[in-house]
């Protein structure tokens, strides 16, 4: 998965789990949990969807690496490389 595909996946997933967020305007560096107002249930939903999309686990220890759009894109690209 290249960066463009990873970004598409992250934004589509966010739009799906938290429809009230304007994903296109989201700062790629802002924390989804603290800045973008995803609650823990939304975040779990988001991680689950990403994990299912790449077909491998995203362990809890890695949650910090998918907590911003920018970090998640890099993480997914490296995990699927």
């Amino acid at each position, binding site marked *: 998965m290249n960066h463009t595909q990873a970004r*598409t996946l992250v934004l*589509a997933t966010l739009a799906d789990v938290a*429809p*009230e967020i304007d994903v296109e305007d989201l700062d790629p560096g802002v924390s989804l949990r603290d800045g973008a107002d995803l609650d823990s249930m939304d975040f779990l939903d988001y991680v689950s969807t990403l994990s299912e999309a790449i077909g491998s*686990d995203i362990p809890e220890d890695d949650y910090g690496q998918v907590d911003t759009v920018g970090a998640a894109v890099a993480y997914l690209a490296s995990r699927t490389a």
Partner: protein
Amino acid sequence: MRRVGVFQMPSLGADMDSGKVLEWLVSPGDTVHRGDVIAVVDTAKAAIEVEVFHDGVVTALLVEPGESVAVGTPLATIDEQPAHRAPAETGDTAEPGPAGEASSDREPVPPLSPPVRHLAHQLDVDLSTLQGTGPDGAITREDIRSAARVPPEQPLPSQSPPSMSTTKSEEPLPVDAGRGPATRAETPADRIRATPRARRVAAEQGLDLSAVDGSGPHGAVTEADVMGAIGEDRTPPPAEGHHVDHKQAMRAAIASLMGRSAREIPHYYVSQTIDFAQPLQWLRRHNAELKPRQRVLPVVLLLHATVRAALQVPDLNGHWVDDGFAGSEAVHLGVAVATRTGGLITPTIRDAQEHDVDSLMEHLRDLVKRARVGTLKAHEMQPGSITTTSLADGGADTLHGVIYPPQVALVGFGAIAERPWADQGMLTVRPTLTVTLAADHRASDGRTGAAFLTALSQALTQPEES
């Protein structure tokens, strides 16, 4: 036929005086079973799917969709199934499924519950083309959702991510002002093929779908067809007034109930700060073996411990009615859920004492999801015996809640965060949270409240217990 029951406007929460029938999911003559969702009722807070409590046949619908009536008003009559008339024929063989399913000359499809039929209708899925995955090949709601996502005649080449959000947004919202009574009683055979979106726009514009030529698959009417027939090239803006009204109505309902609580209930508060390190470690180990979607959130450990505490300190679990406390043996756990529009809804996990941590998580995930899209069921809106509310995701250290009458206790969880902690003479840093119990002083005293917090804190160290 013997009358077996009258289906009444249910009370869906302590703050409800009346409700509006949004939609009937059954017609006279339909066979229903206890637990079937047969109507959608709008309260000030949400559209709720209401289940029937009898087995039988619907003989009359007494209230039109759109009509608001007081709690307790008869909505429909349910009579005994005609199948019971000939006991000789039935003999010992248990008749599988609803024998009263209108016409026997139809092909033997597995019985469909009204909600399944309704969903198929909403999503425009042809039931005769479906392979059921439920018990005995029964078609489930999930089957219909999958079919709606991928029409068999044009399978999507791949599960490309953008399609997830598009498909989702095409699904009609459960609270849908446009989905009117006109479409409810049709059978799959004689209804007009149309996309949900097209139906909604047509209903909003008062357009008869049968007058529109469809250009979609199998001649289905699409939104573009509807717009063409109306002679406009843009989707009309959504009816904003309705949205605002609903928000105001929700505030009014919250205001009424919380106002009553403040007037009637002499609250007292006790709180305790709890070292959450050990529970979090347990949770880490527990979750490490689970797929993300099954993982348990920290707040669920708090719910689990609340249930244990409520069993141990029963004076806080129940209702204050007629100047006295009526305890509840079961713990029906109310969980305050913030909706996306800024409101609050408090569905109930019935018999929460029967669930372990994983099962509580499953229930919570399901309730939160459905509370937010407005597909809660009536039994989930019956008042709980004790309620929890959480700001565990951050924002505030302590939460002094307002009790939901007629309950006598509300447990509030503050944010879980690393804080200084004294342990065996040493100052260290631990994840902690403050649990605050708001309790009704008519029903209990501070000592009882403190005992509850001790029990809760103790139960947190035993998350395996169920």
